[in-house]
């Protein structure tokens, strides 16, 4: 009993130390420039919310939140639809073609995207999709498909075939059997797919910087990057922008923390 007590104190102390950067982030966002230069570590006295209003408009956070949301949501829908359909074939095909395609998809997990970065930029440019939501959605769907297909295929392989077979005996096609019977059974892995891809797409920086920079369709990380570059010396303002930029995903994480943590650690059983 006493050992757990000591451990508890140690762990809480570690957590407090761990939160130091977060304390800096929040306390500076509530200070005016004079407080920041004179008492950089102290609590804000008095706290001010001025930075937040200014940061919201200076970083164009309203429009970027809309852009990020549209791109993330549509990419997730496309990933779940295309990924689960493909996995149904890959998991159930008894052919060389099925196995070969599965390996081809796995290859995409290992390939660093930098290898195709420039040819893809060219392709997106040629298609006139630079600076558009469509270009980004296409990119995320393609780049995250290998991982999505991999998760779904493993899960479907472990499902008994009998459900789908029963539906087919009743006269359903593979398409109906999949959408009506199999897909609802995929809910747990769909949760994992949604969470891991959502965090990736929402936070991704490099490609949206390249494709969307200066287009007016920037996602949150790109807007924040530009904003920080512009106001770099005004730490209170910059940090208010960082707080606002990180807030949506942190709130969603806190609401769904159990599922999020489970999703991230489920690679083990995948």
């Amino acid at each position: 009993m006493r050992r757990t007590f000591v451990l508890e104190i140690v762990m809480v102390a570690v957590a407090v130390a761990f939160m130091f950067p977060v304390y800096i982030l929040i306390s500076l966002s509530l200070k005016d420039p004079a407080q920041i230069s004179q008492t950089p570590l102290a609590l804000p006295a008095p706290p001010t919310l001025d930075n937040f209003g200014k940061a919201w408009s200076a970083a164009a956070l309203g429009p970027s939140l809309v852009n990020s949301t549209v791109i993330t949501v549509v990419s997730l829908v496309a990933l779940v639809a295309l990924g689960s359909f493909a996995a149904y074939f890959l998991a159930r095909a008894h052919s060389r073609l099925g196995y070969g395609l599965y390996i081809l998809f796995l290859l995409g997990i290992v390939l660093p995207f930098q290898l195709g970065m420039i040819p893809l930029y060219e392709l997106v440019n040629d298609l006139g999709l630079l600076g558009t939501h469509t270009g980004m959605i296409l990119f995320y769907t393609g780049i995250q498909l290998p991982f999505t297909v991999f998760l779904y295929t493993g899960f479907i392989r472990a499902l008994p075939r009998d459900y789908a077979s029963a539906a087919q005996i009743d006269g359903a096609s593979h398409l109906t059997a999949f959408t009506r019977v199999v897909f609802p059974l995929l809910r747990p892995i769909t949760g994992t797919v949604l969470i891991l891809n959502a965090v990736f797409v929402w936070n991704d920086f490099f490609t949206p910087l390249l494709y969307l920079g200066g287009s007016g369709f920037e996602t949150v990380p790109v807007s924040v990057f530009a904003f920080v570059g512009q106001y770099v010396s005004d730490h209170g303002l910059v940090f208010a922008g960082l707080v606002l930029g990180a807030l949506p995903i942190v709130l969603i994480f806190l609401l769904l923390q159990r599922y999020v943590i489970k999703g991230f650690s489920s690679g083990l059983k995948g």
Partner: protein
Amino acid sequence: MTHLTVDKPPRSRPAPAARPGGLRRFSASSPSWLFAAPALLVYAAVVLYPAAAGVVYAFTDWSGIGQDMSFVGAANFLALLDDEQAMGSIGNTLLLTLAIVAVQNGVGLLLALGVHARLRSRAVLRVVFFSPVVVSPVMVAFLWKYVYNPDPSAGLNGLLGLRIDWLGDPSVALWSIAGMVVWQYAGYSMVIFLAGLEGVPKELHEAAMIDGAGTFQRFRYVTWPMLAPAVTINLMLSTIGGLKLFDQVFAATNGGPGYATETLSTVLYKQAFVFGKFGYSTAIALVLALFVAAVSLVQISYLRSREVAS
């Protein structure tokens, strides 16, 4: 980096032979390949074609403007050997990866062991340590850029009473970058270790205790071997993440001071989008791809054999 969470390709079982009669025979009808067609189309356009084209570009002198290019054989790779900045970036990338892999997993394991105990605060602690994982690495880097303030009265220096120029001193900057990456992702390693710890049957611990094993012995001989799959995933994830590191460096130091924190990813970015040497840039990307592939293969085969042995 999340798309590398998984290590275990599910064993591909040979398709069961259709049994005579009954449902099995019926289910032997496979779905049409058209189910995979839309995914394949997007995947080919976004990943396969560009990667293949990238391999070709790596052997050209393409400048990115127009279609003007000629094959230069291995010239890009030979130039790489003479390029101090690029060669330095390979060293930096490897050192950075090594530091991140060692510290992130060490810290992650200790946190997991701590949080796994029956603490009253365990649920809160888990959320606290995990929370930086969901935030954009660019924003974390901007936060840490201030935490690493050289001002002795502010940030980490102010807290610890130090006078270190964390990001400005070339001999320190690389380790400071590793520090912020570890801060952000130690919680990720933690939850994967935690899932592994939860999979260790209590009976095994009890049996070892009855046999008189102490805490350390129980960890060494009961817990550790059972953590092998978690170790595999964590090592792969952190290695690949380290090798490809870009956002944090780009936002915090942009490769500076001098070339002290330049990584393969920042160098190939600059070669392409600052200097317009697209062929050369893709050659560097190919080197990075080979590093990632080599590390993945070595790790998979080595850690697999360990898993089986234990």
